[in-house]
């Protein structure tokens, strides 16, 4: 098969996909009703901000920033409407209560793994410019500690945060309570036990040898059982739903929670894969963990929390659905771009490059949507700490995906493949996008989970600025260093060692950036712990949950959100 045929076939396949989408629209498979975007709001709730992490003053400012533009829209309801609203809010409190304990367990584990993973990452980073640092211990050698970092992020921080947020959000979206939360707790215990065993194995040198799939397959069985137990309550809850329409966040989360186990199972079957085929499977898995698990969960979070915080439905609901199907279709096939120039079938690489470029479709669908929803409301970022994380994270999604699409092109890939540029890109996606969105979501969720305010609001700002500045240094430094490395490597007259030397200052910059990020995480973990131990001011209690803002903040009056 020659390249033209493949290109043509891919084109036809992609266009067919689009036609299927158009057809499904005509068949009203998608609810073509903008009301669908409003299902996350109760009656009269649109126009009322919700920002549990904000201080009273911030909350008031946030509300007035939104009201200036849409004052009339802001929930003025009659008496009957008010009663319905109160009933719905009571229902939401029931949903929140049912998830509180389970969500807390997951998020606490996530924070723990975040600290471990950041430390491992920082040590690895330092080792790249100080190779004698901690060189006498086998388990601390670069090849192992770097792998501990990756696995603690990929199977610790990221999924624990994702599960925690999904378990908290889904019952709210389905307007029911979480059913079978005990299974999830048991699942979390198994999962964490598996991860500890897996990291221990890697540190000791037992390892399956595939990037992203290092944990020995025997231990993976435990992950599968744990994951299934975590998934069960979500299935039960879905079956028990009290809503007609499934909001777009449910699509992303639901699909992701079904995609991941399949990826994980196929990737870890022992003895099945061989030679070069194993390499294609390896990157099918490696990229789909990002594309079909972390990304959809974070997108689901943005689609829920962003409108919630500013009290405004997303601008174009259908665009979000287009984004979903385009992501589901294109993202799954991009993995081959990790093997450009490698000894794998050429058609496969071409296919992956085409689909990588096609990824611009869902990414634009999301970015345009986020921008249009936020337009005229960017001032809210000043007042809402949660929103800052989420909106910035959403922007990083656009940046990292567009960057990724172009990195797949042969011309650019020839320079960036095999260099630190790729590492910077990977962190833009998993950190700049996913982790920032998760931070935002956790800041939103935890006050509801604990019925307690964040004790030290300034620490939220400190966390934000530390990780944002740290990450800027990390990303910009490493991207420049990686690019120079790639250019040096392509010039046969330049000795290979020069491609190493040129990166050293940038690797040092990366350690500084990584250090700031780690510091930010320590601040975050400290704050999280203080909240868990209920330091700081006391919240009046669940009675204050979701009370209409007008009543909390009388006209021009002082803040009374806090008592």
């Amino acid at each position, binding site marked *: 098969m020659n390249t033209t045929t493949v290109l043509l076939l891919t084109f036809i396949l992609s266009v067919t996909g689009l036609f299927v989408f158009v057809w499904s629209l005509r068949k009203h498979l998608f609810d073509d009703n903008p009301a669908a975007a409003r299902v996350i709001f109760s009656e009269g709730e649109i126009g009322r901000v919700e920002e549990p992490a904000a201080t009273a003053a911030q909350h008031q400012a946030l509300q007035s920033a939104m009201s200036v533009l849409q004052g009339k829209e802001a929930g003025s309801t009659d008496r009957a409407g008010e009663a319905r609203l109160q009933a719905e809010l009571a229902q939401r409190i029931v949903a929140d209560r049912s998830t509180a304990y389970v969500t807390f367990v997951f998020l606490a584990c996530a924070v723990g793994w975040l600290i471990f993973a950041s430390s491992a990452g920082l040590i690895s980073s330092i080792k790249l410019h100080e*190779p*004698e640092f901690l060189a006498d211990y086998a388990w601390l050698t*670069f*090849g192992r500690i770097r792998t501990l970092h990756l696995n603690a992020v990929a199977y610790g921080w990221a999924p624990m945060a994702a599960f925690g947020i999904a378990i908290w959000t889904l019952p709210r979206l389905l307007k029911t309570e979480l059913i079978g939360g005990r299974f999830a707790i048991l699942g979390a215990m198994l999962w964490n036990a598996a991860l500890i065993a897996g990291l221990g194995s890697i540190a000791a040198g037992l390892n399956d040898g595939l990037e992203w799939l290092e944990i020995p397959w025997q231990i993976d069985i435990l992950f599968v059982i744990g994951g299934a137990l975590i998934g069960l309550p979500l299935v039960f809850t879905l079956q028990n739903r009290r809503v007609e329409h*499934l909001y777009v966040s449910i699509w992303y989360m639901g699909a992701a929670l*079904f995609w991941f186990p399949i990826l994980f199972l196929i990737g870890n079957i022992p003895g099945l894969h061989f*030679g070069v085929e194993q390499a294609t499977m390896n990157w099918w898995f490696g990229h789909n963990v990002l594309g079909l698990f972390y990304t959809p969960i974070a997108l689901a979070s943005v689609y829920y929390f962003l409108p919630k915080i500013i009290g405004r439905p997303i601008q174009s609901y259908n665009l979000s659905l287009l984004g979903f199907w385009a992501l589901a279709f294109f993202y799954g096939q991009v993995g081959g771009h990790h093997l450009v120039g490698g000894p*794998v*079938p050429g058609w496969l690489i071409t296919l992956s490059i085409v689909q990588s470029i096609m990824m611009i479709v869902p990414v634009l669908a999301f970015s345009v949507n986020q921008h249009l929803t936020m337009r005229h409301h960017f001032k809210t970022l000043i007042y809402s700490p949660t929103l800052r994380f989420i909106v910035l994270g959403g922007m990083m999604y656009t940046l990292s995906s567009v960057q990724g699409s172009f990195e797949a092109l042969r011309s650019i890939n020839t320079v960036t493949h095999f260099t630190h540029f790729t590492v910077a890109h990977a962190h833009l996606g998993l950190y700049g996008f996913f982790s920032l969105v998760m931070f935002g979501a956790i800041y939103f969720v935890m006050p509801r989970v604990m019925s307690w305010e964040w004790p030290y609001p300034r620490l939220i700002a400190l966390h934000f600025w530390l990780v944002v500045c740290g990450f800027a240094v990390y990303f910009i430094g490493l991207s420049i260093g990686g690019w120079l490395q790639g250019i040096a490597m392509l010039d*046969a007259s330049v000795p290979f060692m020069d491609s190493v030397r040129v990166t050293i200052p940038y690797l040092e910059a990366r350690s500084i950036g990584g250090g700031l990020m780690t510091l930010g995480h320590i601040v975050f973990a400290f704050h999280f712990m203080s909240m868990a131990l209920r330091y700081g001011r006391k919240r009046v209690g669940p009675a204050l949950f979701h009370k209409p803002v007008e009543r909390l903040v009388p006209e021009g009056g002082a803040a009374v959100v806090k008592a």
Partner: protein
Amino acid sequence: MENEYKLLGGAMVTLALATATLVVVPYVQLSSVQPADGLKPYTSAQLRGRDQYIKNGCVYCHTQQPRAQAQAPDFKRGWGRAPVAADYFYDKPHLLGTMRTGPDLLNIGARQPSIDWQLGHLYQPRAYTPGSIMPSYRFLFDVKDKADAGEKVVNLPPSYAPVGQVVVARPEALDLVEYLLALDRTYPVKAPAARAE
């Protein structure tokens, strides 16, 4: 959408497509690949060495896939011709790698066939390559007053050798070097260009 089954059904179809293109079709297409003519199976010492390569994560800094001359000057650097699937027949798991913090190693055995160089370089890379950022694998060696019979003493440049003591290679280091020396795909293969199609 109101129906979760349609949603999940659609989601599964897209994943099935991805799996078909990136896993199933390559599986079928590549399962008939035979070992290249010049390729020898690994010996058990080499396989033990390969395990050391995996254990210590060499793959995170070294690729084993030189690129074609049309794409990059890998051949001019002495890293070898562009490989074909048949070159990896005995590779379980594959170690193609994605990073070149260090050079490609698919033909390191041909490029640097000296056991002494390999051992010394593992013990202290900077003794051989100034400015190298490769870790020192000192934990694969023992430093003693005197080598016992049958032990392999590492010949280090004088300024890097411990004073009054000798460095001897542990079996792990010897195995690893066995594997590195086996990395030699310099035999000719038919039409490497064919893989582009």
